[in-house]
């Protein structure tokens, strides 16, 4: 424990100095007598007080929440000896909102345990450590304090909010693995495809009894093969606009989490590439565990400034499988990201660019004025030109202008693509 002289000692010393000076100047014993309690309180500093350390236990209700959800932190402190004043302070991560008090001041007798709890809600995604509890003990006269920090690992992951998506951009190419995309080819599946005459080796459960009775001979139902696809979400972490928790990166992370959930529900293999100052990736996979991996990576995604343009050739093929649908989620604030996306398109990837409009995000942080309005309109026009340029290169561009729902943006932007896309 770190021992310190409390600010009260300095205040008392000041008052003592004034009292003694005035006593000498006025030659009044009352002022010496007035200085006596102050001197007695200060004299307590010379006595060496022993402080038995307190034991602190902290319990966090959960280690994984979605944005906007609450975490309850319970702290218990047990005193081994009597403590006149004990201050305990839990951790408040940056951006978190506190319900109740994260600090408590108590008086504890020897062996007594003090407990209290407070709730934290996290408006934005991230990974936070709540493990540090600061303790400050005060002696009887308040002239001296002892400070300590109890560290218990308690990491809370705040995952991006998920919006349910009924329609998502359909992959142009699919795999032979079982999924939700109905293929034109016949094989194992549940969607009926064709009816043909029974042949030796056909299974009895495939016999179409209605057709067989009508024709007088056995017919079987053939079914369409069901396939899945590889989807890679490419998150732009080169730049962001706006204030937390509503930056373009936060919105992009929410969109990526929603898209990942929707594709994983369709039994697709979903991967993630964070393209920025530091590149991170999650290998495509399917199932609940894969969602956890992606959500964890999205929770940690942050902008790392760099002048270096990262080459996507560094990404291993197992992370960026051939014929994968690449969903690039970007505010298009950095020129390096469109270059990387065009590079992918040139390499034969099916690329859809979901543009998170920074115009609306920026406008919400500015004071409304004619100049702001005009600047935003000019910026929006410039961005339209940028989108048209990408469209001319053959990319599908979906413009998402929050607070518009992602579902609406995808429905609007993906209409043309839905008509063109085929599933092979």
């Amino acid at each position, binding site marked *: 424990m770190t021992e310190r002289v409390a600010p009260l000692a300095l*205040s008392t010393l000041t008052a003592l100095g004034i009292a003694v000076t005035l006593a000498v100047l006025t030659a009044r014993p009352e002022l010496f007598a007035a200085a006596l309690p102050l001197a007695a309180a200060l004299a307590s500093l010379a006595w060496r007080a022993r402080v038995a350390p307190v034991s602190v236990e902290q319990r966090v209700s959960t280690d994984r929440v979605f944005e906007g959800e609450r975490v309850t932190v319970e702290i218990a402190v047990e005193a081994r000896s009597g403590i*006149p004043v004990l201050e305990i302070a839990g951790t408040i991560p940056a951006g978190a909102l506190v319900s109740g008090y994260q600090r408590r001041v108590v008086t504890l007798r020897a062996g007594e345990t003090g407990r209290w709890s407070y709730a934290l809600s996290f408006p934005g995604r991230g990974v936070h450590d709540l493990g540090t509890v600061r303790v400050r003990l005060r002696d009887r006269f308040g002239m001296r304090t002892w400070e300590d920090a109890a560290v218990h690992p308690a990491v809370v992951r705040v995952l991006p909010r998920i919006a349910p998506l009924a329609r998502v951009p359909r992959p142009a190419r699919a795999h032979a693995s079982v999924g939700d995309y109905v293929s034109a080819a016949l094989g194992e599946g549940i969607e009926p495809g064709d009816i043909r005459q029974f042949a030796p080796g056909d299974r009895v459960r495939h016999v179409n009894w209605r057709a067989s009775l009508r024709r007088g001979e056995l017919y079987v139902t053939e079914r369409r093969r069901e396939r899945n696809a590889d989807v890679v979400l490419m998150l732009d972490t080169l730049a962001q606009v706006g204030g937390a928790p509503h930056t373009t990166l936060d919105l992009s992370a929410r969109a990526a989490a929603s898209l990942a959930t929707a594709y994983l529900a369709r039994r697709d293999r979903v991967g993630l590439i964070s393209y920025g100052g530091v590149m991170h990736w999650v290998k495509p996979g399917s199932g609940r565990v894969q969602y956890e991996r992606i959500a964890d990576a999205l929770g940690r995604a942050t902008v790392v400034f760099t002048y270096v343009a990262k080459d996507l050739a560094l990404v291993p093929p197992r992370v960026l499988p051939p014929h994968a649908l690449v969903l690039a989620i970007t505010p298009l604030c950095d020129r390096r990201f469109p270059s990387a996306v065009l590079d992918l398109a040139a390499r034969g990837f099916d690329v859809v660019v979901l543009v998170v409009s920074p115009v609306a995000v920026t406008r919400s942080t500015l004071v409304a004025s004619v100049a702001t309005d005009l600047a935003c309109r000019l910026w929006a026009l410039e961005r339209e030109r940028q989108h048209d340029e990408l469209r001319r290169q053959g990319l599908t561009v979906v413009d998402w202008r929050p607070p518009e729902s992602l579902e609406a943006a995808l429905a609007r932007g993906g209409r043309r693509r839905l008509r063109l896309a085929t599933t092979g």
Partner: protein
Amino acid sequence: MIHLLAAGFAVLLVAAPLGVAPALPIAVTALAGLAVAAPGITGFWRWPATAAAGIFLADYAAALWVSAAPVRVVNGAAFGLTLCFLLDAVDLACRLRGATSDGSVIRTRLVQWGIFATGTLLVVVLAVSLATALAAVLHPTTAPLLAAAASLGALSSLAWLVARAQWHRQFPRPARRGN
């Protein structure tokens, strides 16, 4: 609650000089002290309270000097105690700011203040009784010698306290086994 206590101590410190010398300048100074103390009490700020303590002391000294009242050492000790409690109450209010607490903190503090006040006043009363008894026995010419001896004693005690504190800082006692 702690604010009320601090405010109560401040009012007592305003009233004490007026009890000694009920004059307008004394009242004005006392009210100035109260005005300085107010932001410290309400705004959880130690230094206005310290400044107010200085003003209250100056006001009390002025009142004693102006009135040339008979010596009342116990009153002086009570004034010092009130000053001490004002500073402590403001310090405690600062510590309680933005924190949850139960009544036990203030209750314990009140008990400790009570013990400290009783002890201090008892010591002062005993010292005054002893001094009165000695004054009857000793010749007035020995007074300067006694004052010098007392000053030497006070300085020695202060030096001893500082040396002891330094010693403890340099050579901390090893922790007891089992702690």
